[in-house]
C-alpha cells in the first residue's frame, strides 16, 4: 500500500516529480510515457504544471481526465497506433522511453546486446526510437542506474543522440531533442561539452560519487550539483491518493531506495 500522505517522500515520489518536471514546459503536446513511473510523472505534470498535456491510455484513446494507473476516464480522442506515427512526424509529442543502454552521447539501445548479427541478448527491436529521436522531444527513464545501462558506447543505436544526429545532417538534427534522462539516482541532460551527458541533480540521499560509481562513462559534473527537488505536499497527495493509490511505482523503484 501507499505511504500515508504525511510520510516523507520516497525515492519513487522524487522520481515521479522529476519526470513531471521534464514535461512541465511542453505545452499542448502528446505526452507518451513508456513504463510505470513515466506514466505517474506525466499524469502528475498534467495535474500540476501542465494541464494542457494530451495523454492517452497507452492503447488507442486520448483521455480527457487523469485516471489512476489502470483506470479509465472520459475519452477526448482516438490515437490508434497508425495515428501515433502521424503525430511523430507532426512533432507535437514528447516521449519518455526506457533504455537498456545509454551512452555518453545520449544514444540509446533497446534493440540487442552484443553484435547485431548474433546478439548475446536479443531485446525488443528498435521500436519507434529512431523516428522519435529525429522527430520530436525524447527523454529516457532508467529505474536501475548501473554501469551496465550507462555505457561508453551502446551496442546498437536505436535512439539517436545529438552528435549522431548532427553528423547525419540537418534533416536528422532539426528536430532531435534529447531532453532529460531520469534515473533512480538523478537527473541528467545532454548539456555537457560536445552535447554529452551532464548531471543535472542528484536525488535526496544520493551522493555525486554514487552516481559516478554507477556510470560507465565519464559524466560531466558541474561544480555545484543541486539536489533533485522533493515533491510538494500537493504533489504527494496526487501521487499517493489520486494517480497511484496502490503503490505500483514501488515495483519499479522499491521502498528501500529511500532517502535515509
Amino acid at each position, binding site marked *: 500500500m501507499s505511504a500515508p500522505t504525511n510520510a516523507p517522500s520516497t525515492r519513487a515520489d522524487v522520481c515521479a516529480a522529476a519526470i513531471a518536471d521534464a514535461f512541465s514546459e511542453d505545452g499542448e503536446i502528446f505526452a507518451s510515457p513508456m513504463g510505470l513511473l513515466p506514466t505517474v510523472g506525466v499524469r502528475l505534470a498534467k495535474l500540476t504544471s501542465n494541464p494542457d498535456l494530451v495523454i492517452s491510455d497507452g492503447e*488507442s484513446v486520448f483521455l480527457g481526465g487523469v485516471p489512476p494507473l489502470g483506470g479509465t476516464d472520459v475519452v477526448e480522442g482516438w490515437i490508434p497506433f497508425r495515428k501515433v506515427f502521424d503525430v511523430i512526424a507532426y512533432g507535437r509529442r514528447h516521449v519518455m522511453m526506457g533504455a537498456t543502454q545509454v551512452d555518453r552521447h545520449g544514444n540509446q539501445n533497446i534493440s540487442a546486446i552484443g553484435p547485431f548479427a548474433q546478439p548475446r541478448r536479443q531485446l525488443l527491436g528498435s521500436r519507434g526510437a529512431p523516428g522519435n529521436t529525429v522527430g520530436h522531444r525524447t527523454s529516457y527513464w532508467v529505474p536501475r542506474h548501473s554501469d551496465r545501462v550507462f555505457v561508453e558506447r551502446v551496442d546498437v543505436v536505436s535512439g539517436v543522440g545529438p552528435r549522431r544526429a548532427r553528423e547525419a545532417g540537418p534533416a536528422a538534427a532539426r528536430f532531435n531533442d534529447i531532453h532529460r534522462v531520469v534515473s533512480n539516482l538523478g537527473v541528467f541532460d545532454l548539456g555537457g561539452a560536445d552535447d554529452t551527458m551532464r548531471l543535472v541533480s542528484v536525488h535526496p540521499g544520493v551522493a555525486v560519487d554514487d552516481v559516478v560509481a554507477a556510470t560507465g562513462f565519464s559524466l560531466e559534473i558541474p561544480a555545484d550539483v543541486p539536489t533533485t527537488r522533493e515533491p510538494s505536499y500537493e504533489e504527494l497527495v496526487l501521487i499517493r491518493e489520486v494517480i497511484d493509490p496502490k503503490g505500483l511505482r514501488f515495483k519499479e523503484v522499491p521502498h528501500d531506495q529511500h532517502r535515509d
Partner: protein
Amino acid sequence: MSRKPRDKQMTIDEVVASLENGMTIGIGGWGPRRKPMALVRALYNSDLTDLTIVSWGGADVGLLARAGKIRRLVYAFVSLDTVPLEPNFQRARQAAAIPEVVELDEGMFQTGLRAAAQRLPFLPMRAGLGSDVLVNNPWIRTVTSPYDEGHGHEELVAVPALRLDAALVHLNRADQHGNASYLGPDPYFDDLFAMAADRTYVSVEQVVDTAGLTVDTPVQRLLLSRMMVTGVVETPHGAHFTTCTPDYERDERFQRAYAAAASGSDEDWQAFHDRFLAGDEASYQAAVQAFTEESRKESAR
C-alpha cells in the same frame, strides 16, 4: 449466373496450399494483438520454407522462427507485451538462426507498406537517420530533397517499399466477398498490408451477410474492401492467444504457458508442440479449451 460478387470463402488448408516457398508474407495485427494466428499455426505446420516474413511481431514471428520457416525477417519489434521479450524470437536471434534480419523503425515499417500500397519504390522520411537501422541495413539509401524549404536540400531516408506476395490478417467480421470490419479499438495496419500485397487472405471470427456488416456498427469500421481481398476464412478464436477485442482479449494464462515452453528446454517445447500445435486448428482449439478448464479447476481449488 449470380449477380453477386464472387464467394471467396476458403479453408485454412486452401490458403496455405496457395502459398509457395520463398514468398514474402506480411502478417497483420500488432505484437500480441489481433494476429491471424490460425493461419500462422497452419504455416508453422506446413512444408513451406525460405519465407520472408514482414511483421510488427508477436508470437507469429516466434512460432515461425521456431519452426525454421524464416529466411528473412522484416520487423521493428517482436514482443508479447505482458511478456516483453518473445522467447522463440530471442532464441532464434541468439543462435543466428534467421539468416537475414531487417530491423526497421516502426514508422519506417509503416512508410514501407505505404510505398508498396501506393506502388512507389520508396517514400521519404526522417526516421532512421543517424541510427543503426541504416548501419545494419546498408542497402537502405537516402535521397536528397529537390526542394529547399529554408533548411537546405534535406537528405532523407528513402524507405524502400515493402512489397508482399501475400498478406495474412485477422478481423472480426467479413462477408463472403471479402469486405471486412474490425470491431476493436484499433485498425492496426491491416488495410495497408492488404494494399501492399498481391493477395490478401483475411480470417475472421464470423462471416456474415453484407447487410450484417453495418447493421449494428458504423460503416467506418469496414477496413477492407473486397477489391483488396483474395480469400476469406471463418476461424472463430482464430486470433487466439492474441487479442481480438471485443470478441475476446488476450489469453494471458495461455501466453504465459507458451512463453514458458518457448524459453524452456527442447523437451518443454516439444511437449507444448505435441499438446497444442501438432494437429489442425480444430484440435488446437480443443486443446486450448481443455487447458482453460484445467486452469479454472486449479484456481478454484
